[in-house]
């Protein structure tokens, strides 16, 4: 039981968070080393666009979008938010200038950690519904239909629902703070 907890939860989670921190530090170090600190100033833009693009999964899941493989969109959501978060973290650097962008950065960090917890919970749910595979197959469903049914079962398990109740408010706080930061940049910066 303990080794299973380590193998399936604690180690993967630590790896994902550690990798995010390592990529951020390495990116920041490289920009300083290559005298490209100014590039970091603009990395917030692709980072934000990646995070926004990854929200397609959330729309698909809530049936606002009818097309698209939900499994692939979830993978896109996981990768897009992870890479987007790392770009935004490099963009933030270690420069403490204003409070609002830092609140947005902290909210994004909490959001990213929450997302990684969700990913691990989803993996656990998948393993749980794995046992139901035979049941579906016994009902004579085709393989793609079984995959689809298992995916929706996994993401709608009770644990996932409870996690979502935490993840969504965290995301809303992050979204509002990030949009406020973006708005303040548009308000005060001369783009032309």
């Amino acid at each position, binding site marked *: 039981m303990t080794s299973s907890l380590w193998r399936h939860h604690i180690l993967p989670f630590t790896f994902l968070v550690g990798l995010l921190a390592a990529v951020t530090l390495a990116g920041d170090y490289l920009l300083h080393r290559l005298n490209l600190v100014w590039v970091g100033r603009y990395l917030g833009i692709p980072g934000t666009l990646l995070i926004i693009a990854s929200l397609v999964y959330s729309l698909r899941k809530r049936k606002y979008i009818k097309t698209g493989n939900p499994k692939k969109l979830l993978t896109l959501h996981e990768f897009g938010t992870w890479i987007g978060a790392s770009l935004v973290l490099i963009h933030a650097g270690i420069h403490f*200038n*204003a409070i609002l*962008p830092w609140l947005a950065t902290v909210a994004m960090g909490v959001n990213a950690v929450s997302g990684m917890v969700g990913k691990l919970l989803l993996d656990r749910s998948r393993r749980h519904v794995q046992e139901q595979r035979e049941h579906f197959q016994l009902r004579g469903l085709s393989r793609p239909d079984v995959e689809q049914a298992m995916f929706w079962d996994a993401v709608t398990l009770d644990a996932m629902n409870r996690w979502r109740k935490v993840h*969504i408010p965290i995301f*809303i706080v992050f979204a509002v703070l990030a949009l*406020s*930061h973006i708005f303040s940049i548009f308000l005060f910066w*001369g783009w*032309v």
Partner: protein
Amino acid sequence: MSRILKFVLAANLIAIAVLAFVYPNLMVGPGKLIPGHKQLETDCFACHAPFLGSASERCVSCHKPADVGRLTTTGQPVLKPLTSTPFHQKLTTQDCVACHSDHAGVKRYRQQGRFNHALLQKATLDQCLSCHKSPTDSLHKQITGNCSQCHNQNKWTPATFDHNKYFVLDRDHSASCVTCHEGNNYSRYTCYGCHEHTAENIRREHIEEGIRDYDNCVECHRSADEHDIRGRGGEGRGKDEGKQGRKGRDDDD
């Protein structure tokens, strides 16, 4: 999401929004302002136009271009000017924010105090001495103006001119500049400025070799090495030939 949670979230976000308006310098300002603009710290729109950024027109409403480097905004003489000569009056365009940034966080991305000569008007660009003092070392004492012969406008040192490329100043040729370059004209030279070479002995030596076109000495002679003779149209052509041709003969010395 429960109603209480929604309320707490909304209340927090509203509080942050209010703080952003009351303390914009702390909430959204990219770092402290320069000491001279400290009184503008909470008045962002003194310099920034909404969605257009900070325009130079706002800067020059207080900092008159004619006075920059000479007088403060209150009309008092600048006691410790940052440059020895005011130059803002001679810039091609008045684009203040292209060089200046007032917030500490923005300054990090720009090299402060980095002057680019390309910003100067053409008439000023060639008059180095209107801003710079000529160095007082023995070499530069001999030269007046025309700095661009040896220096470019990006860096003073290292000088871009490599004398060895044209003529190596070694041995007997460690002479002062004016020996060869008369009238501060470094685009021309003469080899008859010292007692060693005279028009007559040079003529005699070259005629003996059957050489009649010998006005441009450095075309063949690039150093004091009498055997290093480079013929017209090719590097090092005559090195060995020169050795052979001059072997056993006296020079003009």
